[in-house]
């Protein structure tokens, strides 16, 4: 069985695209081969910055012949129908067979496809793969029309077995396949030919190319650690960086350098971010002090001076970068110390707070400064519900985003919040306030930790509720896959913050009061814009408010609540709570109180997992259906009190007693939101309800007895529905 080797050799492929490209190449080629009737034993894909490689072992040498019979139109069918059949089968009229059928004589096409040799199939599949390769971004070059991630230079396509190797001939946009490739751009620039995968990998290694990215990663990590260890230091692990760097080199040579003493006072996150983002350096720390003291850069070449020139150059670039960072840091600290605390006290406007007035948050929602004022007001209001001091929460909210104007965050946006913490600390703010600056953006993703410090929780909630209310007010909601303002993330953040901290917030009232503030900001912003452009204030404000559809406050709020509920469903489903259970609880009053909702849903789900609980639902539904039908038929509602004196059977009397008993337990339990007790009590109704239905006919001739029984069913309905809307449950 032959083996297949494919290499697509190009100019440098972006590191971030390589993993995906390996997988795509493997899938597209193997799927294509299999679809064409070939089978293979195994396949593996590789990449370096300049090549994508696929090795397939144990490929069948040809596809099996296929015989297919297709029934066509009746021989008396109109000519058009017959022509269509000929087109679809690719046969001529003489080649069709006529066969007798139930409805007369019918054309049959017998299509025989002979087996095809593997090279033919491979050439077709590879041609299609190259032309339709799903690069995230692709380009043309020169005068050609082919698209590839960067100019494609050569195609190696080789079938080999014990007998030797043959090039699979194909030509894509003027690039003919062959059996040659190239080594490292500088260390082994020549062209060489190969005979099979083992030969290819071995010759590449001799030509200073490590084909397997996993092997390059391992080598980089090993050598980097060895270098650090020898100096009594250790490399800070960074998987993403390791993968990226391995995608930038064919022959990795880690080199270690030290960070100048001048820069060791910078926060470790600043050092790490600057080195990673700009230079793709690993950070090296001193295990004794925990400080970042060095770096490892990974060169793509070996030099006569053992990398001395390369390291010197890198060190120089780093020094220039860190000089910038140090300048930013010192300047920012000066600003932080000079005016930040005073601003929070309301005595003096700090430079940054002033600057944020000029930064538009959103065209209709005003400046960052407007937004901060809204968040501060809301944080103050939320504070008591999450156990935070209202003064501290408001102060933290006013300070939390000031770092957006700092030079450091201007340079490294990913350090927002974290720098805020450093600067707040430097300004002498208490830890709770400083930490809120760092943590109030959290949680950022489903797996990101939720803040727990009450001040941070208050600010984080206020931040997200302001975002949601604001964008809802101006009707910028997520649609389909589009969510440019990350509102789904904000909603999930609210849910996780509330649930994770057991905060009891009736969100709807918060949303309504906050929407008022947002609307007034929208009006203010419109007024300001009118002032600048010389327009009429009242017209502008009227127009802005009309546009935002925010006049219909209840509609906006209900819509936003529905969105929050949707996100809650997704969240609870991930936690293993059934969607119908969530629906049954969402239909109950107080559904804007998220912890209450979750408590109810958890209790209901637990009840449904017991045998009594599950059967009770069936009993409830039966009762409810009979009652609903009777009500529709009779045109009345059976909600009179049922009277035990009309009970005829023991089962009926037992049910009366059971309902009285359950009622007495459920009503007080519901008052204290003790859903577990309420639902247990509800589940005890299962046996008496089942017994009642077995022994008793509802529809009897005696209308008094019938009415009484329907009224009894109504009691079942009322009691059960007081716990959760069981009609929403599946089954």
């Amino acid at each position, binding site marked *: 069985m032959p083996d297949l080797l494919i290499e697509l050799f190009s100019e440098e492929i972006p590191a971030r695209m390589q993993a995906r490209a390996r997988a795509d190449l493997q899938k597209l080629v193997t799927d294509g081969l299999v679809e064409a009737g070939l089978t293979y034993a195994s396949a593996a894909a590789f990449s370096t910055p300049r090549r994508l490689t696929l090795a397939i072992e144990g490929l069948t040498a040809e596809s099996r012949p296929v015989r297919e019979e297709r029934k066509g139109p009746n021989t008396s069918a109109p000519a058009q129908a017959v022509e269509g059949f000929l087109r679809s089968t690719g046969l001529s009229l003489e080649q069709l067979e006529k066969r007798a059928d139930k409805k007369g004589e019918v054309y049959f096409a017998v299509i025989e496809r002979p087996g095809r040799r593997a090279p033919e199939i491979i050439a077709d599949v590879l041609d299609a793969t190259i032309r339709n390769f799903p690069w995230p971004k692709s*380009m*043309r070059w020169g005068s050609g029309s082919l698209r590839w991630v960067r*100019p494609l*230079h050569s195609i190696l396509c080789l079938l080999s077995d014990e007998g030797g190797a043959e090039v699979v001939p194909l030509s894509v946009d003027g690039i003919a396949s062959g059996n040659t490739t190239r080594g490292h751009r500088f*260390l082994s620039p020549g062209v060489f030919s190969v005979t099979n995968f083992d030969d290819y990998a071995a010759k590449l290694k001799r030509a200073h190319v490590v084909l397997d990215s996993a092997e390059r990663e391992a080598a980089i990590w090993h050598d980097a650690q060895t270098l650090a260890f020898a100096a009594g230091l250790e490399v800070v692990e960074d998987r993403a960086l390791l993968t990226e760097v391995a995608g930038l080199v064919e022959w990795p040579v880690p080199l270690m350098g030290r960070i100048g003493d001048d820069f060791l006072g910078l926060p470790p996150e600043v050092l790490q971010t600057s080195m990673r983002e700009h230079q793709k350096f690993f950070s090296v720390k001193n295990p004794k002090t925990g400080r970042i003291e060095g770096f490892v850069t990974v060169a*793509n070449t070996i030099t*006569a001076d*053992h990398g001395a020139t390369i390291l010197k150059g890198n060190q120089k*670039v780093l020094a220039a970068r860190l000089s910038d960072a140090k300048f930013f840091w010192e300047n920012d600290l000066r600003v932080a110390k000079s005016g930040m605390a005073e601003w929070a006290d309301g005595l003096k406007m700090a430079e940054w707070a002033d600057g944020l007035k000029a930064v*538009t948050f959103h065209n209709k929602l005003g400046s960052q400064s407007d937004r901060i004022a809204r968040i501060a007001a809301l944080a103050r209001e939320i504070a008591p519900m999450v156990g935070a001091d209202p003064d501290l929460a408001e102060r933290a909210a006013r300070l939390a985003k000031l770092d957006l104007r700092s030079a450091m965050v201007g340079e490294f946006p990913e350090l927002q919040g974290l720098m805020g913490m450093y600067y707040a600390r430097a300004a002498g703010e208490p830890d709770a306030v400083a930490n809120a600056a760092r943590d109030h953006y959290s949680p950022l993703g489903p797996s990101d930790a939720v803040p727990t410090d009450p001040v941070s929780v208050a600010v984080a909630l206020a931040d997200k509720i302001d975002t949601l209310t604001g964008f809802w007010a101006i009707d910028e909601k997520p649609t389909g896959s589009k969510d440019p303002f990350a509102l789904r993330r904000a909603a999930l953040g609210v849910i996780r913050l509330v649930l994770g901290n057991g905060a009891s917030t009736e969100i709807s009232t918060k949303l309504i009061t906050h929407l008022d503030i947002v609307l007034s900001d929208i009006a203010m912003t419109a007024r300001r814009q009118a002032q600048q452009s010389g327009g009429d204030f009242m017209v502008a404000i009227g127009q802005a408010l009309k546009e935002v559809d925010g006049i219909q406050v209840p509609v906006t709020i209900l819509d936003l609540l529905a969105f929050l509920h949707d996100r809650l469903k997704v969240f609870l489903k991930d936690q293993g709570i059934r969607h119908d259970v969530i629906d049954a609880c969402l239909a109950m009053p107080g559904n804007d109180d998220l912890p209450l909702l979750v408590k109810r849903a958890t209790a209901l789900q637990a009840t449904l997992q017991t045998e009594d609980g599950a059967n009770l639902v069936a009993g409830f539904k039966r009762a409810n259906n009979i009652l609903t039908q009777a009500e529709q038929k009779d045109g009345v509602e059976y909600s009179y009190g049922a009277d035990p004196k009309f009970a005829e059977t023991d089962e009926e009397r037992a049910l009366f007693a059971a309902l009285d008993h359950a009622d007495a337990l459920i009503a007080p339990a519901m008052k204290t939101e003790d859903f577990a007790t309420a639902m247990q009590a509800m589940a005890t109704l299962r046996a008496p309800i089942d017994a009642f239905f077995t022994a008793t006919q509802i529809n009897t001739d005696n209308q008094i007895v019938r009415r009484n029984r329907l009224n009894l069913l109504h009691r079942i309905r009322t009691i059960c529905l007081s716990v959760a809307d069981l009609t929403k449950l599946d089954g």
Partner: protein
Amino acid sequence: MSDMPLTGASPSAITAPRSFQEIILRLQSYWAAKGCAILQPYDMEVGAGTFHPATTLRSLGTKPWAAAYVQPSRRPTDGRYGENPNRLQHYYQYQVIIKPSPPDLQDLYLGSLRAIGLDPALHDIRFVEDDWESPTLGAWGLGWEVWCDGMEVSQFTYFQQVGGHDCRPVSGELTYGLERLAMYVLGVDHVMTMPFNDPASPIPLTYGDIFRQTEEEYSRHNFDGADTAQLLRHFEDAEAECDRLLGFPPEDPKTGKRIIMAHPAYDQTIKASHLFNLLDARGVISVTERQAYIGRVRALAKKCADAFRQTEAGADAEGVSA
């Protein structure tokens, strides 16, 4: 992996250049030897070498093209009164543009690095993904920033679109940031101390001797001096003039020839772009307005590109494009 045998060492030692101008001269001779027309800088204020019509306009249409030139470039917001070691509001770019992009453009480029004393056998040269986009020119391309020992020394781009037109064939564009590159080659830490001519000359001049004072003057001008009301008017004028020039019928009544004023109109686009940069430096353009201004310049660039495609130099081989 440094235990592998060393091969591919540099064939011959390259002498190190001694001054800023020597680096420019070597690039000029190198690209002249490779067949580029060595053009002179465009005589207008531009933000980057790409704005030179030899790049923007000539990258359109099918006519083959190869040019290289130094372009003084201005970024008013980057003014630092000559104090920052790396930042200047007036600096030089070296620009190479070849259409269609030759298959060995990377090798040609690496040859130019060797020519100025950066030997790949001693340095770590890397092509790191960096997609280029000019929102004001309505242009984009894919390519890399080229790193030498961790420092970005050039931008390497395959143009895909310019002025809203697909580039067919594709031009290859190389842009060298001359000051930064030269500082690295010459081992200089502050741009102002960099030798401009040979340090052994009878009258040795540093970069600072020539540009420190102008950096101060223009920094003050860009940040505080420029008359914003007048700049705004000039922006509007340039915009209107561009439209007016393109509004003429193609037929010139005086000569009877078809003369579309694509280049004069494009000059107005360049002007508008620079005026916008100045206004930006003066801090009178808000975040929201910024996008609108960029859009206005882009609209001009597109119209000029459309017009150029109607001319002989910008047409497709089979004739003037529709």
